[in-house]
């Protein structure tokens, strides 16, 4: 029999620490496979954030940094500017990237750093026990919004892909979701494209993943997929939000 699907060489085979059904694991796989498919594992440097994916460095079979909370794009900038031959990618959660790290991601994107950012939006601070994130959906209950996110006090969810797409500096910005196998398949193509843009030295690339947190959402993994589809998709439209080819130089 022929193996038509198996564990990617881009990752180690040990079990991961994520909660059952947490889609962080799927996202890992897509990145790991891409490292192999593009033949870049041996010149890749990944950057783990602070968040549930803090141990990402244990899972990817490539050189890794563990960065401070929110600053992975700055670490990536330092690494890539000094060794442009490396393929540098960040893996960040939404607390990490859209709260404390807002400035770093925007400026890395705006400088056009030739790095790839994998952004895992699960609408919550997973690791610290389910506090409201900037990406939390209106009305969503968290450990710090006992009555649900109140847009009058906390504002609306932050849409990082839209914000970054707004920048004039060329970049590749896309949003994908983990709520169904079909979306996962689409996501894989987009992750590949994102890395390809780096490999060809074209531009900054960024993929936002809608992801689940069954533990802190207080739902089963399957219910989480449905909740995500019903509640997150309306706020976070999927698709390629910006592609470098469409960039029109100096005009707005």
């Amino acid at each position, binding site marked *: 029999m022929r193996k038509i699907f198996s564990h990617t060489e881009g990752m180690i085979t040990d079990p991961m*620490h994520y*909660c059952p059904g947490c889609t962080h694991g799927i996202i890992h796989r897509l990145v790991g496979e891409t490292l192999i498919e593009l033949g870049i594992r041996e010149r890749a440097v990944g950057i783990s954030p602070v968040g*549930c994916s*803090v141990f990402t460095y244990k899972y990817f079979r490539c050189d890794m940094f563990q960065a401070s909370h929110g600053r992975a794009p700055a670490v990536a900038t330092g690494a890539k500017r000094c060794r442009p031959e490396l393929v540098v990618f960040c893996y960040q959660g939404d607390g990490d990237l859209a709260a404390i790290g807002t400035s770093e991601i925007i400026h890395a994107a705006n400088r056009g750093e030739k790095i790839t950012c994998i952004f895992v939006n699960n609408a919550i601070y997973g*690791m*610290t026990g389910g506090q409201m994130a900037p990406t939390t959906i209106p009305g969503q209950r968290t450990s710090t919004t006992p009555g649900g996110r109140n847009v009058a006090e906390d504002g609306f969810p932050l849409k990082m892909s839209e914000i970054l797409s707004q920048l004039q500096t060329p970049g590749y910005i896309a949003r994908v979701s983990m709520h169904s196998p079909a979306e996962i398949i689409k996501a894989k193509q987009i992750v590949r494209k994102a890395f390809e843009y780096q490999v060809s030295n074209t531009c900054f690339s960024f993929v936002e993943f809608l992801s689940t947190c069954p*533990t802190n959402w207080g739902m089963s993994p399957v219910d989480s997929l449905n909740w995500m589809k019903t509640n997150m998709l309306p706020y976070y439209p999927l698709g390629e939000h910006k592609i470098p080819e469409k960039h029109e130089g100096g005009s707005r």
Partner: protein
Amino acid sequence: MKTTDVLFAGFGGHGMLMAGKLLAMAMIKQGRQVSWLPAYGAEMRGGTANVTVCISDGDVMSPYIERPNSLVVMNTPSLHKFGPKVKTGGLVLVNSTLVRESFERDDCHVLYLPAGDIAMGLGNVKATNLVLLGAFIGLSKIVTKEDMIEVIQESFTSKSKFIPLNVSAFAAGYEEGTKLRLENDVELELEDEERDSTYAYSNG
């Protein structure tokens, strides 16, 4: 001044922290001093989760105890980790439903109770913690059955549908503990210690 320490150990989700908390609350009701100090694994799920409850007639000195008087243990890894640390003459109460091995220490009382099976028998394996708590109290008689039940009832008011299960799990454990006490001739009480309390603040 009389004092004792109990370590409740298991994995996250096993409810050992809650068991410790109920004990601590009962002690306060009796006018005793307590501390409840939990320790978890890293920020992930499924790691160890244990709690040390220190009970004293005076101020609790160290809430951090490496060598407790008693250990109530849910599963094998926790037994391996903490079993050897129990003080000589102390108590090790083991949930034999999950721990399928015997633990060798002849300087302690090592007692086994199929607490998981008992809880399962009552309809929910999640009540294993209360069975173990009941057994510990049956063994130690550190508080009366009635007082403890009162505490359980009070502390579950917001989730009152769980009260009956928890009370019956506790009661079942208590019976088993009392039996074990008699069978094994266990004599556990607050230790008596000569302690001097020169405790003085300057400037308030």
